[in-house]
């Protein structure tokens, strides 16, 4: 088993952290995992992305050319990764920040209004966790409970009060995605 996931968006959308949460959960369920960021002067705004690879055995390349699963949090990221998706793959789109649909018919699209759902929960910074919840519908090796256990284990004490809302965000994202998946035609 090996799965590669790309997460992309603007700096500040919590993309790197979202990737790390997946990585922690993968590690804690006994998998091999790599998390690699695009690094550079991204603190000056601009787009950020990271790739997470989860596998049963020693991982070779931490990067892939054609990811089977990707989460895009904004339009530039959709434009960049849609053409790169592996046929049959799943693209999770943050529809709050993207005003077009996925053009390819050979991939599954999941549209999730992550910002709106996060605001409903009461904290717009949770958009990344909503998106992670949606992403999990396409990553069968990880369950929402794995992510929740990870957050519980790794959230520093002073942030612990945020845990229930994080869990709510993940669950809502997951449930919404299950109901709003546009399957590939091919």
């Amino acid at each position, binding site marked *: 088993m090996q799965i590669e996931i790309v997460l992309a968006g603007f700096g500040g959308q919590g993309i790197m952290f979202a990737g790390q949460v997946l990585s922690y959960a993968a590690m804690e369920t006994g998998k091999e995992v790599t*998390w*690699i960021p695009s690094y550079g002067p991204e603190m000056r705004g601009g787009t950020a992305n990271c790739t997470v690879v989860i596998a049963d055995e020693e991982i070779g390349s931490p990067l892939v050319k054609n990811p089977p699963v990707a989460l895009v949090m904004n339009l530039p990221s959709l434009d960049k990764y849609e053409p790169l998706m592996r046929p049959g793959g799943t693209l999770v789109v943050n529809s709050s920040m993207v005003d077009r649909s996925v053009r390819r018919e050979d991939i599954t699209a999941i549209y999730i209004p992550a910002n709106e759902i996060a605001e409903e929960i009461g904290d717009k910074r949770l958009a990344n966790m909503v998106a992670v919840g949606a992403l999990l519908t396409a990553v069968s090796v990880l369950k929402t409970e794995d992510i929740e256990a990870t957050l519980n284990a790794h959230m520093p004490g002073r942030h612990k009060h945020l845990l229930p809302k994080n869990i709510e965000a993940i669950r809502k994202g997951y449930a919404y995605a299950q109901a709003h998946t546009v399957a590939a035609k091919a």
Partner: protein
Amino acid sequence: MARELLKGNEAIAEAAIRAGLDAYYGYPITPQNEILEWMSKRMPELGRAFVQAEAELGAINMVYGAACTGARVMTSSSSPGISLMQEGLSYIAGTEVPMVLVNVMRGGPGLGNIAPSQGDYNQICKGGGHGDYHPIVLAPANIQEAVDMMPLAFDLAEKYLNICCVLLDGSIGQMMEPAELPEMQPYPRPFNQPWAVNGAIGRERRILTSIYLDPPEEEITNLRLLKRWEQIQKNEIRYKEYYLEDAEYVVIGFGTAGRIALSAVRAARAKGIKVGLFRPISLSPYPYKRIEELCAKTQAFLVTEMNAGQMLEDVRLAVRGRVPIRFYGRLGGVMPLPDEILDEIEQMVKHPPKAEDDPAAIWLHRMLETVK
């Protein structure tokens, strides 16, 4: 100890601390800043020495001083900073004192960029500074290996009174993987080596220097270095092999290029190609012998690097024309993807290279055609 999800640079820093690091001197440079930053927090916390030097030139000479006292000392930098350190490295080699250097390579030459590269293989493995000396160079391909290498690097440096360099690229420095850190060594370690300059309390005074004005004396010094190097070559060869039992073709790559090749090798296997991977871990000393042995059952080698074929020269030295070689490199901070290497493997099988080919020249012309 349990596995933790660790960032390469931070894991390296913490592993060195746990191995009993007494002093760290460095200067900021991307993509290894996290090492310096980690040290700036942890070393003072533990009552150990940390200085952000005014430059790499200062840093390496601080290392030189501390190394002469017998302390466990290291510095870290990235390509342009390592260039600045060459003077100190040569003096340290000439004075025969131990130190550990971590080089997180980036794209060059010149200021280049901060993306992952293996462009400094020659600089590190073949010297860089002036004079006849050989650093020990270890190249990890993942974070666990890098972590395990830190205590080893200190042990080797001290055992052979030699520079030991852990050579990686920005991608390993920046990425996160699960890894297990070593136990914290009891600290302080007693250090009182019979050569250390630490004050002549109750003993004859000692002098450490790299000047031997009398050429015959310098020649003897050089021979002493070389004798130890011979021991190192005998004892300290390290590499890892994958799917070589029945392999007809062998890919050779170190560090990140090696691990990317692993994905390609698996993909090629899935297509029925009998190919394996040989990943050198000690780059200096280089596993010439093992590659020589592999020639007997190998139809062709594919050497892949994130440079223009610097390690390729060492492979050619081992192969000596017995088996044809194909080369594939990416330059200037561009990381190859597994698909590219898979394609190279398939091409090698379909159009076998000839033993008399110049693999670097053939590759260069392919690159000039395709990368525009």
